[in-house]
Structure formats: C-alpha cells, structure tokens
C-alpha cells in the first residue's frame, strides 16, 4: 500500500518535471525560432552596406515607399536599405533630432522644408554636391533646393526632393453641380461658394473645411500679396496681407460656412479629410498628398482645383526632402547617395507620384507621363503640378521652424477659434519672432 502510494505520488512529480522540462525546451525552441525569424526579416545580406532610413508616411504612402525600398534592395547587391516608420513628420523630426544628439541617428531620413535651413546651419546635414549624380538630377527647380528656398541654389546641396506637394482644393463635384457652382477662382467666389453650400441645420454641412494650419495661412498670405519674410530679411509675417488672410478665415468661421476641424497638426488634417468624405464639408483645402486616398474613398465624384486668387495667385510648396546625416560612416553615406539616385530615376518618380498624389519631382518623369497621356486620364493629378507656376519659395531662415510652430501656429488658432484681433496677434507674433532664442 505504502509502495503503491509512493509510486502514485512520485509519478505525477516526475511527469510534472518532464512536462516542465519539455515546456521549457519548447519555449526555448519557439523563442529561438521567433528570434531567428525576426532576425531573418531584419537581416542584412552579407557583404552589403546597410542604410538605415527613417520615414514618416502612413497608409498607402508607406506601402508604396516600402515597395520602392524593396525594389532597390532586390535590383542590386551592393547596398541594403532598412526603412523604419517613425510617426508623422513632427514626431519623426523630434525623434531624429533626439537621435542626432544621442549619436544614434540613421543615415537617411526626410524632413519638412521649413526645418532644412536650421538642420543645415546646425551642421548635421551632409552636403550632397560631391556624390556622383546627385547635383545634376533633372529636378523641377520649384521642387528642389534651388527654388524651394529664396537663393536656395547658393547653399551647398543639402536636400533632395521626394514627396513634394502644394495645397489644393478638393470639391464634391455632385454638390457643386446641384448648386450650379464652379470651383472658386477668387476670394470673393470662395466666400460665395462656401456660403451657398452650407446647410446650417443639425446634421447639415459646411461649405468649406480647412485645417487652421500655418501652411494654408502662408498660401492665403501669398494670395493677399504678402510674404513671411520681407525682401530686406525682416520677419514680416505678411504685414497687412497676414491680417487679411486671418480675417478671411475669421469671417468664414463667423458666418458658419467654414469648419475648423478639431485637433492639431495632422489630426486636424485627417479630420478635415473625413468631413469631406462623409459629406459634412462640400469643399476642403488639403495637400495634393491625399489625392489618391480621397479619390479611392470618396463615394461621389471628386474634383481637384487650384486655390483661388486674392490680389494674385500663390501657393507654398510642402512635403519633405531627403537628407543624409553627416554623422553616418562614409560608406553608408555613399550607399544612401546611390539609393537617392535610384529614387530619382524616372520609373520610381512615376510610381511614387501616380500612386500617392505627390508631384513628380523630375522633368523626365513629367515628360513620360505627358507622353502616356496620364494627365488627360487623371486631370486631378495635374492641378498641383500646374500650381508650381505660382509657387512661392520659403526663406532660408534658421528661425522659420520655430516661428511656425511656437509663434504663428498657436496665434492662428486663437484668431480663428476665439475670434481675437488678427492685427494685434500678428504684431505680438512679429515681436516674439524678432526676440533672440
């Protein structure tokens, strides 16, 4: 009896131990398998130079970029680009700046144009002029460093264009047709159209939606005949034109025909897109970057149109530029330069622009698209490209990014949402912009 009890008592213990041992073994095998699998995904093929690329695209744009990177990795055996998503432009930029300080920056990234002068003057960008083939790419000057900034060509080549855009108007063509309206060509027409298409009742519709954002304000300032930085270098913030631009927004919000979407930065942009897609806004201003997304998701006929004119036509350019970090080892920087050359080849430029809505950045790509009658079949794609004739360059100013984020943007929100005096706010902003940091 005792022996049996001992046997029965000991048997489960042995089984437990075996089970535990097997469990541990299985866990170890599974763990090493998972580790191996993850390593296999991230493994750099032997003998290749690794280029770490930090990018800030979500959704379709991310998929297209990853496919282009994959194409580069498959079509040559010298370099290997590893692309890592880092959040939206501003999150990505914050991480990039922190990584530079921590000396663990990637080799390659892309940043908004407003921050390039600051990064260049801080000495963290690699001049690209001497890398084979980069200085003589057949770039559209308004999209490259040369004319994206005032006197951009006088600085060493620090930035190459990739996803470049302008603001454009998106129209719900069905609502416009029902109301017998066309895309507004002037500010007065914008007022009329916004008012006519507004339905103020519950569950109604706004005639116009636009994120209260620096980029669109800069467009309005240009249209009102002003400039952010005066020709003498003074930070003008448009002077009277800056006030006129803000007052136009204030007037439309007061009348209830403009919906400033909630949220800040790209949250507001996304909200604006959703308002348009759900029929809560008959027309919005957004980036050409969203063209393919909006076309794919709109359950109505969508029309793209250029922005209207105030006293003249004007738009800023937007999107980002490729940059190579100076801190990277030489072979990796050379590999990054080869990747950039690949990305500016006609096929890649065409694939990127036609699948996302961004503007093709080289003349050869535009010529190829014209030859295929691409713009005949896709007239919406031509709108941003045509607007380049009225694109205004950014000042090459190290303070531009600070002025945008810390000084102007909060005051735009204050003026439009709280209806505060536009002139007083811009006087305050100018004074702050002139203060030493």
């Amino acid at each position, binding site marked *: 009896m005792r022996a049996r009890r001992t046997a029965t008592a000991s048997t489960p213990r042995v089984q437990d131990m075996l089970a535990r041992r097997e469990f541990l073994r299985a866990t170890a095998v599974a763990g090493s398998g998972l580790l191996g699998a993850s390593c296999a995904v991230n493994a750099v093929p032997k003998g290749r130079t690794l280029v770490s690329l930090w990018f800030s695209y979500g959704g379709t744009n991310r998929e297209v970029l990853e496919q282009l990177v994959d194409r580069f990795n498959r079509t040559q055996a010298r370099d290997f680009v590893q692309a890592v998503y880092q959040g939206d432009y*501003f999150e990505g930029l*914050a991480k990039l*700046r*922190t990584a*530079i*300080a921590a000396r663990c920056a990637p080799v390659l990234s892309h940043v908004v144009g407003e921050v390039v002068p600051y*990064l260049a003057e*801080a000495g*963290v960008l690699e001049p690209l002029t001497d890398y084979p083939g980069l200085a003589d790419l057949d770039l559209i000057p308004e999209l490259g460093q040369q004319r994206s900034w005032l006197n951009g060509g006088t600085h060493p080549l620090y930035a190459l264009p990739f996803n470049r855009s302008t603001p454009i108007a998106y129209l719900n063509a069905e609502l416009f047709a029902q109301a017998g309206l066309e895309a507004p060509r002037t500010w007065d027409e914008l007022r009329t159209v916004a008012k006519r298409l507004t339905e*103020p*009742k*519950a*569950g*109604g519709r706004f005639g116009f939606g636009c994120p209260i954002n620096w980029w669109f304000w800069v467009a309005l300032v240009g249209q009102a005949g002003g400039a952010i930085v005066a020709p003498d270098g003074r930070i003008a913030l448009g002077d009277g034109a800056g006030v006129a631009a803000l007052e136009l927004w204030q007037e439309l919000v007061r009348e209830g025909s403009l919906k*400033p*979407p*909630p*949220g*800040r*930065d790209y*949250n507001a942009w996304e909200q604006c897109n959703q*308002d348009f897609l*759900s029929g*809560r806004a008959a027309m919005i201003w957004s980036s050409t970057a969203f063209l393919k997304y909006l076309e794919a998701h709109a359950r109505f006929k969508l029309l793209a149109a250029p922005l209207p004119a105030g006293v003249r036509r004007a738009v800023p350019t937007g999107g980002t530029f490729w940059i190579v970090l100076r801190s990277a080892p030489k072979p990796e920087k050379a590999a990054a330069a080869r990747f950039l050359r690949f990305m500016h080849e006609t096929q890649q430029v065409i694939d990127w622009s036609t699948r996302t809505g961004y503007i093709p950045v080289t003349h050869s790509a535009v010529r190829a698209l014209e030859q295929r009658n691409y713009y005949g079949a896709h007239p919406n794609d031509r709108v941003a490209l045509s607007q380049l004739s009225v694109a205004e360059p950014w000042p090459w100013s190290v303070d531009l990014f*600070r002025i945008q*984020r*810390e000084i102007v943007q*909060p005051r735009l*929100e*204050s003026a439009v*949402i*709280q209806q505060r005096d536009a002139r007083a706010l811009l006087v305050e902003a100018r004074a702050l912009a002139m203060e030493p*940091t």
Partner: protein
Amino acid sequence: MKPSRAGDPYWLLLPTLLLLFVFFVFPLVMLVEHSLFSWDLLTPARYVGLANYRSLLRSGELWQTFGTTLSMSTVVVLGSMTSGLLLALLLDRPGHWAAFVRSAVFSAYVVSWVSVGLLFLWLLDADSGILARIYSHFSQGRAPRWLADPALAPWAVAAVTIWKITGYALVIFLSGLQDVPVSVLEAAELDGATAMQRFRSVTWPLLRPTTLFVATTSLIASFQLFDVVRVMTQGGPVRATTVFVYAIYEQLFLDLRVGRASAEAVVFFGVLLLLTGAQFLLFRTQESA
C-alpha cells in the same frame, strides 16, 4: 531587533539607495542643471541662468498651464470623489447585481488611457458622435463642438477623466464604508436618526481619512494627466487643454527646447512636492485629531 554588525542595515539599503540615486536623484539634478541652459540638442548648450524661468513667467505660459491644470484637476477630483462616494453608498450591499455594477464601474479604471481617449473621441464627435445625435434629437441646431471649442474642451477632457477614475474612488470608498462599525449605525437608527442624518453624523465623519486619501491621490493623478490629452486634443484648441505634463512634452519633444522644458518640469516637481507636503500635513492633523 538589533543587527549583529552595525553596518549591515546600510549594506542592505544600498541597492535601493543606488537605484534611487540613478533613477531619481541624478535625473533631478540634471533637470535642474538643464533648466539653466538654452539647448536644442543639436547646437552647443548656452548658459542662460534663470532666463528660462523668467521667459515662462513673462510669456504667461506657466500661469496659463498652471491654471488649466488646476481647474481641470479640481473638477476631476470633485467629480470623481462625488460619483465614487455616491456609487459606493449605492453599491455597498451584497448581491450579484451590486457586484456586477461594482466590477463594471471599476473596469473603466483598468482600461488603457489611449483606448479611453479614442473611444471618447468617437463618442464626442460633434457631427456623428452619440452625444451629438442625442443633442440634435432634441434641438434643431448643430451640437456643440465639445473638443474644438476652447470653452468646452477642458471640461470634456475632465469628464472623460472622471469617467475613467471613478472606479478607483469607488473601491477605496467601499473599503472605507466597510470599516464603519455597523453597531454605531444601528444605535443611531434605534435613536431615530434618518438615513441622511446617519450619513451626515456617522458615516461621513468616519470616512474622512478615506476621503482625504482619495482626494490626494486623485489630485496627484490628475496633475499627471497626459495620454488622454495627447489622444483627444493635443493640448488644443488654442492651448485650452495644455496641462503641465503635456506642456513639458510639447516643449521637449516637439519644440526641442530642453532648457525651457526642464524649467517647466522643475516647477511641476515643486508643485507636486507641495501637494505631497500638504497631504502629509493633513494626515498628521487627522491623526492627532
């Protein structure tokens, strides 16, 4: 108990002290040091003395942030305490139904802040959210823009926070209620005291230490509000929901003003220190009373 060697307790304390030094004291000293510099992480840091503090004060940013945080925290603390206490009084009884409601209310407390933020972003949507639909059912006009109106957004965020942390107050008040001696309540009842009189004269005075604990911990938690602001409003509209922690995040990670962010963090540390000091003082007064 007396240690066999006088130095033993110190050796045993050493790992904890080391951890405290590396992760608390050292970063705090670095924080104070950084607050005296102007630094953007890329260009060399420049010593500016107290300029960061002066700039925060002069721009009104510090007062605005402090005001926003304080007013939102006050609403959050009062709201969560009141609702927590009311629910505790209602649910302090046996039975499956009460247990189910207690669990349901507390479940909100264990859901992540980001999930709660996203959920309420959808519920509070001014055009298609449930609240907007209810509003438009009774009214012909457009529903208020809860999250886009600077006058409403702080209270909308505060309400979401109350919803989230009420479960915590409920649990603490329930444990407090269970410490109230039944014999005293029964004696009061025999003396003819009404339910309200029993609550005012017996339950409430005996719940005072619990109330103090809930108030202090909720206040400190609400001062540290970040996730829900980041998800729902990003500090807007027009900085109306820019609370302390979000302001520090914005200065540091979006504007890369290390010095100014550090100065703001030092002030925030001081405020939390004051709150904790007040808590100790109140507890001590309570004990001596």
